[in-house]
């Protein structure tokens, strides 16, 4: 697994170069060129079907790419490689799912401990300590022995974030983390994400939560029909979006 050579001092975490993807005849991603720098928080928004989830899932290769290059921390994720190499790369990319996907047969603590132990080879005692620390960080220390089915949606998502953080990834990807939550639980998850951003984590989030984007994001990407139509500073984007479709999107959102 040879990283692509890059200039010294390069602070690019994720680089999309001419990414294209088709599902049969339907083009899901079209000529995507974008960059997430280290420590940056990027929010990707757009109408449903715009390809935002597809885009974020290409980063850890949960979706394949037809053409183009995707670099994560210098590594070409979509290059042909042995599965062991891909697994290793994935273990360095934190991913949080819309439907949490916690492992129901394991307790909260075990959910967080499993992958550091079995994928990274961390010793049990260290994994446990790390897990306890992360639970405290997401505010769920008292739920260590509980099982996912006993937690609310917001609690489950916070555990899912802790599970991803346990791998100590240099970047975290969030695929609509609050879309499956009842409104009163959205806040608790967003505040964890806000905390991560303040601590300097590189984050790429697909979300509809515009207030969160305004507060926390460094850049906003607006996508429609598989293309990134606008990349802007959040304040600028929300005050006066340039692209007509972005304008329509924001006015539709505000209409509710």
């Amino acid at each position, binding site marked *: 697994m040879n990283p692509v050579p890059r200039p010294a001092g390069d602070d690019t975490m994720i680089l999309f170069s001419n990414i294209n993807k088709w599902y049969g005849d339907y083009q899901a991603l079209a000529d995507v060129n974008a960059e997430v720098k280290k420590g940056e928080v990027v929010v990707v928004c757009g109408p449903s079907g715009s390809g935002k989830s597809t885009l974020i899932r290409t980063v850890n290769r*949960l979706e394949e790419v037809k053409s183009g290059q995707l670099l994560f921390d210098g590594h070409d994720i979509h290059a042909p490689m042995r599965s062991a190499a891909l*697994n290793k790369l*994935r*273990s360095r990319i934190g991913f949080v*799912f819309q*439907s949490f*996907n916690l492992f129901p047969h394991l307790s909260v603590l075990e959910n967080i401990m*499993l992958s550091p132990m079995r*994928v990274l080879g961390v010793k049990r005692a260290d994994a446990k300590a790390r897990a306890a620390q992360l639970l405290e960080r997401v505010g769920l220390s008292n739920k260590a022995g509980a099982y996912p089915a006993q937690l609310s949606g917001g609690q489950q998502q916070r555990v899912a974030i802790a599970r991803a953080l346990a*791998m100590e990834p240099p970047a975290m990807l969030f695929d609509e983390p609050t879309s499956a939550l009842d409104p009163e639980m959205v806040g608790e998850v967003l505040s964890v994400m806000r905390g991560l951003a303040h601590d300097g984590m590189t984050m790429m989030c697909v979300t509809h939560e515009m207030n969160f984007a305004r507060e926390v994001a460094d850049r906003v990407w607006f996508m429609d029909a598989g293309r990134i139509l606008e990349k802007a500073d959040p304040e600028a984007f929300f005050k006066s979006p340039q692209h007509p479709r972005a304008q329509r999107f924001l006015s539709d959102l505000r209409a509710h």
Partner: protein
Amino acid sequence: MFSVFEILRDNWLLLLVGQYPSGPLGGIVATLILSVLGIVLAFPLSVLLALARLSPWRLLRWPATVLVYVVRGVPLLMVILWVYFLVPILIGREVSGFTTMLCTLVIYEGAYLSEVVRAGIQALPRGQTEAARALGHSHLGTMWFVILPQALYNMLPSMLSQFISTIKETTLGYVINVQELTFAANQINNQLLTKPFQVFFILAMTYYVVCFSLTQLAQWLERRIAHRRLGAASAKTSEDGVSLPPPAVVNP
């Protein structure tokens, strides 16, 4: 009809343990031993077959699929005949009817049970596999730590149903003179000759009691598991308790 009780009283030992100790162990005890051994030995085979059928490698997938389809398409009697014929050739010496029957059950149940396991694995939400892979687990790691523990637990009622099927399948041992319950009943009938209905009625009722109790256990288990899995809030069960998974359970 009262002769039913007389027959039971006179022959209960034969029905229970066959001609033991003056002969090999038989009767219902032999039936149960054969069934338990059969399903226990079939289980690891079934997990391997299921994993092979779901594996990304064609070299594993195709032979496994062919084996399962063949066993599902051929009557149990034919499998018994094949095993009876091939095993002595492969091992080099004669084998008892009991061993033949056991091998047959392991192969036959292995194939059917593998369908149950496969259904269990495929019934899990895709998100589980995705989450495990996203964390960096390999295919086998994902199976071992995340998928199989859930699938096997969810499929316990179906596996119990397969065990019940195995008990019913042991009756075919009669055809190759295995000393189990049906054989014992036939022995009694051949002695008495005048009360065939009563004898076979006893036989049918004995199996009924055993299998029915186990079926009730399976239904209770299913309710428990549904309750656990979906959280206390919503334990959905179907009215008769057993929601049928994809039909892999077969009556022989």
